[in-house]
C-alpha cells in the first residue's frame, strides 16, 4: 500500500484542490483549460462533468483493481473512461441542452484528459474504494476550481461580464480586452493565475502541515 493511503478523506480532497491541483500544480489537461474558459458558465459545467467522470472512473477502477490483468490495465482504464464520458455526454445533452451546445465538443475530449488516466493509474488502481472516491472528488474539484478562476478572469477581462450578465466594463466606459477571449489570452490567464496560485501556496499553504 502506498503512503498516500494514510491520508484522511479530507486531506485527499485538499490534496487534489491544492497540493496536486491538476491545472495550477501539475499543469495537466491544459487544453480544456484554454478551450472552454472564455465564459464562466461553460467552464463551470465542463468542470462539473470532469468531477463526475473522475469520481466514477476512480470508483470503477478501484473496484476492479484486483480483477484487471496488469498487462492490459491501460486499455481497460481507457475503456472505463470513455464509457463514463459517453454517459456524461448523453446526460448533459438531455438535461442541459443549452449548455451542451457550447461544451459538447469538449465533453467528448475528457476521454483524452491526462489527469483522469493518471489518477486511475497512480491512485485508484492501488487504493481501496472509499479513498479512491475522495481522491476523485479532490482532483475533480481542483480542476473545477481552476476552470472557474480561469474562465471568470477571461470573461471579466475579455467580455466585461460575469456569468454572461450585464457588462460592468461598459458601465465604467472601459473596452473589453479582446485578446483575453482568444487562445493567446487563455495562455496568459492560465500562466498568470498559475503564478498567483503558486505564490500564495508557497507563502501560506505550506505552513499548515497538510498543505
Amino acid at each position: 500500500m502506498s503512503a498516500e493511503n494514510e491520508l484522511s478523506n479530507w486531506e485527499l480532497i485538499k490534496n487534489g484542490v491544492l497540493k496536486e491541483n491538476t491545472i495550477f500544480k501539475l499543469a495537466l489537461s491544459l487544453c480544456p483549460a484554454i478551450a472552454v474558459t472564455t465564459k464562466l458558465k461553460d467552464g463551470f459545467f465542463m468542470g462539473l462533468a470532469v468531477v463526475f467522470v473522475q469520481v466514477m472512473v476512480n470508483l470503477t477502477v478501484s473496484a476492479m483493481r484486483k480483477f484487471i490483468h496488469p498487462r492490459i490495465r491501460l486499455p481497460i482504464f481507457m475503456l472505463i473512461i470513455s464509457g463514463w464520458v459517453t454517459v456524461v455526454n448523453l446526460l448533459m445533452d438531455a438535461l442541459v441542452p443549452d449548455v451542451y451546445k457550447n461544451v459538447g465538443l469538449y465533453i467528448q475530449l475528457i476521454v483524452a484528459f491526462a489527469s483522469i488516466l493518471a489518477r486511475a493509474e497512480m491512485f485508484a488502481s492501488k487504493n481501496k474504494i472509499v479513498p479512491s472516491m475522495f481522491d476523485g472528488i479532490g482532483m475533480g474539484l481542483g480542476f473545477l476550481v481552476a476552470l472557474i478562476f480561469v474562465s471568470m478572469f477571461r470573461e471579466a477581462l475579455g467580455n466585461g461580464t460575469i456569468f454572461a450578465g450585464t457588462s460592468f466594463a461598459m458601465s465604467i466606459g472601459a473596452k473589453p480586452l479582446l485578446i483575453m477571449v482568444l487562445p493567446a489570452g487563455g495562455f496568459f490567464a492560465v500562466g498568470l493565475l498559475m503564478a498567483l496560485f503558486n505564490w500564495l501556496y508557497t507563502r501560506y499553504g505550506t505552513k499548515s502541515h497538510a498543505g
Partner: protein
Amino acid sequence: MTGKDILKITLNLVVVYVVGGLILAIVHANTSPIRFANKVAAEKAALNSMMPEAEDTPLLGVWKIHDKEAKYYAATKDGKTIGYIVQSFGKGYSSYINTLIAVGRDFKVIKVKILDQKETPGLGDVIEEVDFTNRLIGKDAEHLKALKTDTTEYVQAVTGATISSRAVTDDAVRNGVDFIRNKMKEGGPGNVRRK
C-alpha cells in the same frame, strides 16, 4: 504469457465491454426520448418565436443550400399567409451557421435567429446575439450586405467577426430571402400546400 493470462485478459475485456455496453444502452435508452422531445420542442419554440402572431406554421418543403437540407414554412393566421419562415445555412469562419429567417409578404426580414454555429467562442459567436441579428431587420435581399463601415442602409458587420457577419448576412439570410421570393413568385403567393 501463460494460457491463464490470456484467459484472464480475454475475460477482463469481455466483462468491461459487456458491462460498459449495458450501462451505455440503459443511459441511451432513457435519455433519447428526452433528447428527441427537446429537439422537437426547440424547433417548435424557435418557429413560434420567429412569428408570434402566426397561428400555424405548416411546413412547405425542403430546399438545399451548401449541400445541406433546409426547411421552409409558411406562417398563417386566419387561414391567410402572413409571411414565411426559412431555414438557411451560411459558411462562416469555422462552421456552417444554421439560421432561421422570418420574412413578411413583402420579403423583407422580420426576424433572424441563429440556431446553431461553431464560430470562434467569444469572438465570432457574437453574431448569435440580438445586437447583431436586429441589424438585419427590415432589409430586403438587395440590402442584405455586411459592411465594415458605419451603415444602417446595409448591415454593419461586428468588429472582429467580419467573416461570421458576412456568412449570416450575405450568405445565409440573403440566399434564404432570395430563395423564398423566387419560390413564391413561381408558385404564386399565398399558395400554401401541406406536405
